[in-house]
């Protein structure tokens, strides 16, 4: 027995030595290696595709497979900014779509915050056993595919859908309310889909809050509602920022919800992008749209990152 154990050790040890020696010879430390894996992943699946899309956005359209070329008629490599990016600026459709996306995303974020804050606050103030059940319920919808959940709303909202049928059956309305294919349906879909992303970071923040601060405020003559705005809200600011970012950023580029629930008037940048790619087969413009929206989203992300760094600095 003892000899077999030591034999196993003997065969294993040189192997790890071998790995270590190799890494050392290459000048790579173990810590670097651990960090390198996610870096490599992001490089391959985020940065390289980004460069490809960037290059496509600077190409010419041709009728070919693929439907773009990097070369002009003379066969020179040219960066064609005018066709794609020029169109983004000159055609008001794109500006409108961008603006509309930002408005829809911002409005949805505010609605999510208004609904999510009391939600998170309530959960954080519950007894621990009830708290876990409520958190579970918040996460539960994720067990069903996002697409299916959005489809389910069609069944609820359409003219002969569940809501209209029930309302008509109990006699509150005579004819169905047109809810499908409206901005209302888009907002409903976005708020419904992204609410958990607002609640969870807010909950994580509010749950940590020191209740004696509210007692101290009350002790100093501050009524509960005022204490909420003077103490709780400012202290939960990191949670508000995190939740808002998690809702706002994906909502700006949202495609599925306006496509399935929205009407022709709900012009959002995700839909424009789809149309350029698949209907117009204008890949350079579609890529330009994508690059522009990416930049528009990276900037707020960077602001958030800066803010978080500042918070971390404060804590340390």
């Amino acid at each position, binding site marked *: 027995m003892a000899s077999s154990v030591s034999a196993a050790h003997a065969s294993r040890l040189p192997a790890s030595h071998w790995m270590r020696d190799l890494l050392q010879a290459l000048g790579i430390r173990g810590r670097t290696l651990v960090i390198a894996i996610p870096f490599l992943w992001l490089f391959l699946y985020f940065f390289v595709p980004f460069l490809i899309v960037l290059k496509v956005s600077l190409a010419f359209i041709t009728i070919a497979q693929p439907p773009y070329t990097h070369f002009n008629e003379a066969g020179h490599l040219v960066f064609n900014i005018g066709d794609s990016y020029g169109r983004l600026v000159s055609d008001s459709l794109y500006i409108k779509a961008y603006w509309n996306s930002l408005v829809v995303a911002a409005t949805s974020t505010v609605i999510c915050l208004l609904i999510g804050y009391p939600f998170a606050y309530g959960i954080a103030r519950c007894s621990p056993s009830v708290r876990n059940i409520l958190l579970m319920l918040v996460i539960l919808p994720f067990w069903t595919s996002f697409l299916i959940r959005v489809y389910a709303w069609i069944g609820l909202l359409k003219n002969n859908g569940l809501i209209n049928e029930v309302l008509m059956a109990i006699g509150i309305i005579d004819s169905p309310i047109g809810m499908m294919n409206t901005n209302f349906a888009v907002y409903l879909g976005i708020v419904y889909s992204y609410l958990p992303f607002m609640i969870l970071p807010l909950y994580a923040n509010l749950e940590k809050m020191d209740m004696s601060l509210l*007692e101290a405020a009350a002790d100093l003559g501050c009524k509960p509602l005022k204490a909420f705005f003077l103490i709780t809200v400012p202290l939960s600011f990191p949670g508000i920022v995190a939740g808002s970012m998690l809702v706002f950023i994906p909502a700006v580029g949202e495609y599925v919800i306006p496509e399935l629930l929205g009407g022709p008037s709900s012009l959002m940048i995700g839909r424009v992008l789809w149309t350029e790619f698949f209907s117009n087969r204008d890949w350079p413009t579609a890529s330009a749209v994508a690059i522009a929206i990416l930049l528009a989203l990276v900037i707020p992300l960077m602001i958030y990152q800066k803010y978080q760094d500042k918070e971390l600095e404060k804590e340390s």
Partner: protein
Amino acid sequence: MAAVERTSQAPSKQTELPSWKDPKAEPYIRIENVTKKFGDFVAVNNVSLSIYRGELFSLLGGSGCGKTTLLRMLAGFENPTSGKIYIDGVDMAGIPPYDRPTNMMFQSYALFPHMTVEQNVAFGLKQDKFPDSEVKQRVAQMLDLVQLTPFAKRKPHQLSGGQRQRVALARSLVKQPKLLLLDEPLGALDKKLREATQFELMNIQDRLGITFIVVTHDQEEAMTLSTRIGVMNAGQIVQIGTPQEIYEYPQNKFVADFIGSVNLFEGQIVEDEADHVLIKSAEAGCDIYIDHGISSAPGAKAWVAIRPEKIQLTKQEVNAPHNCVRGTVKGIAYMGNLSIYLVQLDNGKQIKVTMQNQMRAAELMIDWDDRVSVTWHPNSPVALLS
């Protein structure tokens, strides 16, 4: 020591009765039969207590004895399960914390982390809608008092523990409450700073005439600060008295043991006259004669408490009918100003004796393993029935 100093600080009051002994004095705070239950757990059990204007009253007890719960009921954070609390004659039932004439200094300080020192201190005044100029002036005064003016613009996380504690104190004092509640106010401070702050607290109390109620588990702190102490155990107040009364005349074993150190001997009462008690104690190994009477039936079980500093050791043999026993020194701890002797009596019981080191090298006069006579004055022991 410090407690003695405290009463001599106010010579003008010597002719008057202290307020708690004056039958005409109206108590400022009246706690009547207050009980607080958390589920089945009784945190505070039928406590009645009167506290007078200008007192510095300490609630002293171990952790979980209900002292903090009692304080929180005064502040309004908890409601009594039964019983009444009156502050200045007003029934506090149903009055929320923000409408009570009290301010509290929290054990955790509970400073608002997103506000500067200045904003923290100003918070209470702003709630009362004082004009800005007055808020500014009073905050500046307060910061000056606690010597934090240079730190006015800092946030709490940029301060040391002692500085935070002073911010908390300033914040609770700035509204000049009628009643200040302090929950373990000096717990986080080191010894030097604690002593300095104790005297500072007493100064502030004298100057502003605020009634203080201090919750503490630190008996030394309670002895130094208080006009009176309420000793708590298992949700009940077991004794109320001045520091001297609590120390010199404990009413039961718990108080005798909790405050200071004490040697306890179990025994049986043989004689109980008006001017003396005689207790036969096998545990002490001799009869104990005490020069004050207690009213009890002879033959009853009793305990005798003797403080270590009230016992004398001598190498000479002493022959006395009582209050005298032989033993062997088993250990000496030299503390500088005094020495603690661990003496094993001939019946096996170990007792503690402290003696002042009046002369240099006094500790050498009695050494380890020396045979000694242990004696005490009939005035020194206290007989306890429970």
